[in-house]
């Protein structure tokens, strides 16, 4: 068995709205091994996105600890977290979240602007990432010239271009037709199997979840098998 890569310990998370506390996650304990592919399922509003955000370091738990690759990320400053994210996390969103004014190449290049790479190195990395997702011939296309499935593949290229160990996907197929969904799921399986990426994927869709090794369920803020 490989090492524990993501560790959530006694997580409690609530939001405050007008001095009213809204609990979202209760007593979450979760260990994810390196190279794992985990699907997180659950109804809307059950706290899936919130949980993903805690692991990504874009939100902090009210109580408990988040440890990723040995790093206690809940203790990091905002800027340190931003840097940590850029090096360790690849993010995939339901609605792709590409920059509409940038073409596929430029969108994928964005995370590399946070590295010390020069232009030529960036170009090589972007081309590699786009070829992995099968879009080498669409580099100059803008998001509105691509299908939903292609957009999501560009977004996946953006998520892997810095070669992070952990990929977080929030309903990556939620907005796609059946065929595109299959393409995206095959791609994620490949990233997990071939490139050994640890993947945590939120999904509603049982068919998508089948590709994962482990499925966990969230309901009303609590985690079940």
């Amino acid at each position, binding site marked *: 068995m490989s090492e524990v890569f993501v560790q959530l310990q006694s997580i409690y998370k609530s939001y405050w709205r007008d001095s009213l506390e809204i609990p979202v996650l209760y007593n979450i304990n979760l260990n994810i091994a390196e190279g794992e592919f985990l699907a997180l399922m659950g109804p809307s509003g059950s706290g899936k996105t919130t949980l993903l955000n805690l692991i990504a370091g874009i939100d902090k738990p009210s109580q408990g600890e988040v440890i990723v690759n040995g790093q206690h990320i809940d203790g990091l400053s*905002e800027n340190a977290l931003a840097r940590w994210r850029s*090096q360790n996390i690849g993010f995939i*969103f339901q609605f792709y979240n590409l920059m509409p004014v940038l073409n596929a190449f430029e969108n994928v290049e964005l995370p590399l602007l946070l590295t010390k790479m020069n232009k030529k190195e960036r170009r090589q990395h972007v081309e590699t990432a786009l070829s992995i997702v099968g879009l080498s011939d669409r580099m100059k296309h803008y998001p509105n010239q691509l299908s939903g499935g292609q957009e999501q593949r560009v977004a996946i290229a953006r998520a892997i271009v810095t070669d992070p160990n952990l990929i977080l996907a929030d309903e990556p197929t939620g907005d796609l037709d059946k065929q595109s969904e299959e393409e995206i799921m095959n791609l994620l399986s490949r990233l997990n199997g071939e490139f050994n990426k640890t993947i945590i994927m939120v999904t509603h869709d049982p068919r998508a979840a089948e590709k994962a090794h482990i499925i966990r369920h969230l309901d009303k803020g609590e985690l079940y098998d």
Partner: protein
Amino acid sequence: MPLLWNYSYKNISTRKLTSSLTIFGIALVVFVFTAVLMLSNGLNQTLVDTGAEDNAIVIRRASQTEIQSIIYRSMANIIKTDPAIKIDSNGTPMVTNEILVLINLPKRSNSKFSNVPVRGVTPMSLEIRPQFKIIKGRMWRPGTSEVIAGVKAASTFKGCGMGETVHFGMRDWKIVGIFETGGSGFESELWGDVDQLMDAFGRPVFSSLTMKLKSSNQFDGLKARLENDPRLNVEVKREKEYYRDQSSSTTLFINILGIIISIIFSLGAIVGAMITMYAAVANRTVEIGTLRALGFSRTTVLFAFLTESLFISLIGGLIGLITASFLRFIEVSTTNWDTFAELAFSFRLSPRIAVQAIIFALVMGIIGGFLPAVRAARFRIINALRAK
């Protein structure tokens, strides 16, 4: 810190309509601002150039302008012997006695009457004004009713063109030549034989004496001697200073008016830029959240939006400046409020004005873009990502 130049630039070039509206607003303001500076600069140049560094002018004390000044022949004879006056190669002191009278003539453009200065000069007048040059026709002959017209007077007033005839002082005067003085205020005048003009106007006294000094630093001595001479009652000024003082009210007026107009316009443009940028931030909330999630800092986001605003204002500024630069070819004429004479001058661009115009545009961009950029930088990532 990484900068999102490309992202900022492409947001402007992609959103052409909103960008160009804002750019147009800024361009308009910069155009007005530049035009005012050019106008004021043109006026200053015209008046400051009217006069040489080593020339001095003598008028009656407390008369302020030549038009109100009276210098008797007896006084003139005393003044002409001052040792500070340069002697030319023929052994003649370089000093001229002139009269200046305002006459009323209709303008070519709208037939409205306006004041034209008529200067009675001597041959020496031309020598001590080195920029003087006849560009058409010839000099007047002594003892005749001939005059020459400055280029601006010739183009502005009826009857003042080459070969035309103009009536004043109960005589007809023929325009036999057109002259230039390097763009200075003299170009708005008519010049004739001082004796003929004194005769025509029935005026046996001079208005002023102008002299070239042996050197510029002789001025203080000359001033002290003449102003303290009990037989005289005169004031001595450097020629340059004299003309500058003459236009101070007009220059001040143009500057104040210009500043007020520029401020009002710029408030409009700043609000316009601000609205554009607030809209940009609101429309791109999810993009901002995504950039932050990818690892870009608040500061980078702040600069991205500030850059965008600065790009817009820079483009607007350049367009405004370039458009305004064409005003160089336009000539304006206005009443000089200090002398009530009509004065023609041009819009004049200088490197300094160009720099000021661009800085002005950038300042508008910073002010208009700052608050929206701060707003963009302040979003919490999770809230920005949830925005729809």
